């Protein structure tokens, strides 16, 4: 999922005007003709850097995204729910692996990518800096967070960069399971006891607004959208995708008998759309800057995992080298 990187171009890419004009013209003609760009093809530096940043943020988000749900694996209420949750968390790890692979085709190494995450230089989706306080949060994440992710990801299957597009097709096939198991979990709670309904409503209350923020800042505050749209890295604007998500999700909440925590939410018959209340963008900025409830914990968990695994990585290499020598002898 999790593509806030869509909103940012690389810090100091070459301006389009500094590229070789003939190569740039041919590149843009291919993009216009809906051709895919492949790793060894010429591409503008800004395209390459934007993709590295976006795909790696996306990969980091998948990996960090394993943590909030992983928190509930040992406390899942049944063996079936535990199996489902393990499968889902394993998928997130897999998605991270597909995406790191795609990013590496652009000429950056896995070690550099991991280093950027652990040093805090790279970002990941702000949504994972919120805690999972109850079992219902596992349902809310599948339903809302993965639901928002799907909204973002389906258009990315048609992204102009071949390896990213192929990775996203694979990811999207698996996301649908994630969203449906989440909704199924919410449905069980919503039809359960008063206490179960209460934690379902509480989870919706806490995850609703952060889910809307996942689509990134409003279009009026997202200056890089135009170039990303022109190069077909991005196909729809943040607000378009957010609107679609709201329109899909409101009836699903109604079916659950849960209330969306937005008193201003209303149906606009003329536009044929829901209108939602103001999003608190200061909260979003604050979480992105590192001040969300779990930013420190999430990064620390990744650093600990990386450090604890160091001897295994080194031992595996030593073992492989020893056997390669034996085979050569």
């Amino acid at each position, binding site marked *: 999922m999790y593509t806030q990187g869509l909103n940012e171009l690389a810090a100091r890419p070459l301006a389009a005007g500094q590229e070789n004009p003939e190569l740039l013209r041919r590149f843009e003609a291919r993009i216009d003709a809906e051709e895919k760009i492949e790793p*060894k*093809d010429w591409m503008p530096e800004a395209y390459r850097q934007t993709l590295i940043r976006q795909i790696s943020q996306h990969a980091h988000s998948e990996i960090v995204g394993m943590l909030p749900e992983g928190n509930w694996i040992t406390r899942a209420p049944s063996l079936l729910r535990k199996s489902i949750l393990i499968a889902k968390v394993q998928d997130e790890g897999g998605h991270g*692996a597909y995406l790191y692979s795609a990013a590496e085709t652009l000429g950056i190494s896995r070690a550099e990518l991991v280093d950027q995450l652990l040093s805090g230089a790279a970002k990941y989706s702000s949504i994972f800096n919120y805690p999972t306080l109850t079992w219902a949060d596992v349902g809310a994440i599948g339903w809302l967070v993965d639901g928002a992710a799907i909204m973002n990801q389906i258009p990315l299957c048609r992204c102009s960069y071949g390896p990213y597009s192929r990775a996203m097709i694979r990811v999207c096939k698996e996301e649908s399971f994630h969203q449906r198991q989440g909704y199924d979990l919410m449905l069980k709670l919503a039809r359960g006891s008063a206490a179960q309904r209460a934690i379902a409503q509480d989870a919706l209350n806490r995850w609703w607004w952060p889910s809307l923020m996942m689509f990134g800042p409003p279009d009026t505050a997202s200056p890089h959208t135009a170039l990303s749209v022109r190069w077909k890295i991005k196909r729809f604007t943040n607000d378009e995708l957010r609107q679609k998500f709201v329109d899909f999700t409101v009836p699903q909440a109604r079916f659950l008998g849960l209330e969306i925590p937005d008193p201003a939410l209303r149906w606009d018959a003329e536009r044929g759309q829901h209108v939602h209340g103001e999003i608190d963008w200061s909260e979003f900025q604050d979480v992105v800057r590192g001040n969300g409830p779990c930013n420190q914990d999430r990064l620390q968990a990744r650093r600990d995992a990386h450090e604890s695994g160091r001897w295994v990585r080194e031992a595996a290499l030593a073992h492989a080298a020893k056997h390669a020598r034996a085979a050569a002898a």
Partner: protein
Amino acid sequence: MQPKPDWPLYEIFVRARGGLDHKHVGSVHAADASMAMEHARDVYTRRQEGVSVWVVRSTDIVASDPDEADALFEPARDKIYRHPTFYDIPKEVETL
């Protein structure tokens, strides 16, 4: 400080089912080929996507250069007589 180098990269090819070709699906890092096989299995075949896997060291693949694509592939463009549709066969002639 430069981060430590990665495990080597392996390209992964999966045969979806008997009778089909192996198809490139992505890559994994691994210390050696047998670990690459285990990682490929975990990363690319969690839902019965394959019945057979090839792993190949990425550095062992020799790829054509996109800059030479014209020289390699363009000469075939004007040889339309290589296609069966080039030939007009009278309707009366059957099974040809």
